[in-house]
């Protein structure tokens, strides 16, 4: 059994004066010990709801979830001893200082007063908040608030870490720093479930990615598997003379995994490929042999939008109601 396992979770929100929302509609997950699962999905997909169920904040109508064999729904108290949580919105006491927040969390995990203070200082150092340690959080910037919230999740070095969009609002330096911290924790055996809007982040941190939409997992696999599933990489070139297009087309068709697309009056041609590097070399070789003149040639990685467009039919920024458009040349799911 995986370290963290969720089966067939269903959560329905029934807001007053608004339509009922099926936030989770039979969602299942499994995260092996010491690995990172990245949850990717458009706004409203159910990422935060999943995190809330697994961190004991809300009870699903049906389904089961276990962490290290402990039933999340039956023994929430035991689960709370094993988890560190940083939700999508910082959960900190505005009136307490950075230090006091961390110390309070430490004491509520039942650390001794000495351990709790020592750990608080250590985390302030780690998250670059030493200078702000005595200031009430009320006056913190968004990124500082985020950092103090992340620090709260690490007070006991929990076996499982839940991070809901942990780097949203962080500057590039803090983002890299956090990635490093998470990387070290995973090396030490921590299991991590993180949600993100950034493919780069999932790529860098996650061993496995689950793409969710409308409360269900619609695709899962490693970052590479997903990328090839949605078309992998793309080789694209721009010719000096459009007359050469007919010579290049068969080459691209041979290395590609889909139909060759052209644009720019037939001067720019592109195709999705499984292995970008070798495809690019092969195309370059053929082009040189034929003596064709190129303006530009390159390899494009799929963006997060490509992933969403390919798998969910709508882009990250679009809401639930966005029409399910399938871009040309990509297989509909």
């Amino acid at each position, binding site marked *: 059994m995986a370290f963290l396992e969720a089966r067939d979770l269903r959560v329905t929100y029934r807001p007053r004066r608004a339509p009922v929302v099926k936030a989770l509609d039979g969602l299942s997950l499994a995260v092996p010990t010491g690995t990172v699962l990245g949850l990717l999905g458009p706004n409203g997909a159910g990422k935060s709801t999943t995190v*809330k169920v697994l*961190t*004991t*904040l*809300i*009870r699903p109508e049906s389904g089961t979830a276990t962490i290290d064999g402990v039933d999340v729904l039956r023994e929430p*108290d035991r689960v*709370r*001893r094993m*988890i560190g*949580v940083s*939700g999508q*919105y*910082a*959960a*900190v*006491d*505005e*009136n*307490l200082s950075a230090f*006091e927040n961390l110390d*309070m*969390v*430490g*004491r*509520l*995990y*039942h*650390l*001794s007063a000495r*351990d*709790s203070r*020592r*750990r608080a200082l*250590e*985390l302030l*150092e*780690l*998250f*670059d908040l030493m200078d702000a340690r005595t200031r*009430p959080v009320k006056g913190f910037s968004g990124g500082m608030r985020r950092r103090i919230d992340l620090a*709260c999740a*690490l*007070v*006991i*070095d929990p076996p499982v870490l839940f991070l809901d969009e942990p780097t949203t609002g962080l500057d590039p*330096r*803090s983002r*890299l*720093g*956090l990635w*490093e*911290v998470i990387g*070290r*924790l995973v090396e030490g055996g921590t299991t991590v479930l993180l949600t993100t809007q950034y493919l780069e982040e999932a790529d860098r941190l996650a061993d496995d990615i689950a793409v969710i939409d409308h409360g269900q997992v619609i695709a899962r696999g490693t970052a590479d598997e997903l990328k090839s599933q949605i078309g992998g990489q793309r080789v694209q070139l721009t010719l000096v003379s459009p007359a050469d297009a007919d010579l290049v087309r068969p080459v691209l068709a041979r290395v590609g995994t889909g139909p060759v697309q052209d644009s720019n009056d037939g001067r720019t041609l592109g195709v999705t490929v499984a292995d970008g590097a070798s495809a690019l070399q092969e195309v370059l070789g053929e082009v040189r042999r034929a003596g064709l003149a190129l303006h530009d040639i390159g390899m494009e990685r799929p963006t997060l939008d490509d992933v969403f467009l390919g798998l969910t039919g709508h882009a990250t920024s679009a809401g639930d109601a966005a029409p399910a458009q399938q871009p040309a040349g990509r297989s509909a799911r």
Partner: protein
Amino acid sequence: MSAPAGVAPVPRTLGPVAQWFSDGWITTRRNLIKIRRVPDILVFTTLQPIMFVLLFSYVYAGSIDIPGSSYKEFIMAGIFAQTVVFGSTFSGSAIANDLRDGIIDRFRTLPMRPSAVLVGRTNGDLLINALSMVVMMATGLIVGWRVHSSPLEALAAVALLLGFAYALSWVMALLGMSVRSPEVINNVSFLVLFPLTFISNAFVPSENLPTPLRVFAELNPVSALVLAARTLFGNVPPHAPPGGSWTLQHPIPAVLIGMAVLLVVFVPLAIRRFGRITTR
């Protein structure tokens, strides 16, 4: 973010009782820090009662006649009761604020007793009210209020006032979790508590009120609280007529029963509600 993560400490395993006290203390301490940091609370809890005592004992004392006693003596129990009843509303707005800030979600993912947050919060109200009582009694003594009973009875009066307000804090805490808006809590306390404290025997003898108001005042729990405190301080005017309701004929048992009922009903309700609530 360059320093090493360090070695995270290992939590101790506490017994249920030790854990309850530890969690309760930590959340109480959190509220004490807040009291220190948000000066409005201290102003409200110290200056306002002083102002009330001074205003009532100097502005109205001349015009309201209490046969066989003085208005100053009569009014003090009323001011005490009103102040502690209003003091109990902090819990409501504070919990609504906590929900807005998201800190409740943090608490609910920690291995703490779920009741501890509410215990810490209501303890905060209790301490604020205790402070208000000290300030008001000192001011009262300075302007000429006297206790005409034993110190033990006076202490019982203080305990009754604080205890009743403490029970009310739990009602307010539940309200705060239900409406989730500090502003609404403030409005509710204004719209409910002002009539409740003014249409009572707190500031004028209820016998003098027009009939419908008199009936309301006699059944009003605040009247029982005021009369209980007034009795225990020995401040009841000598020829005051007996109360027109059971609660006014037996104010002390009435307050104790009311307090017990509030606690028995609202403590479990509030704790249950806390166990399900999320921020967003």
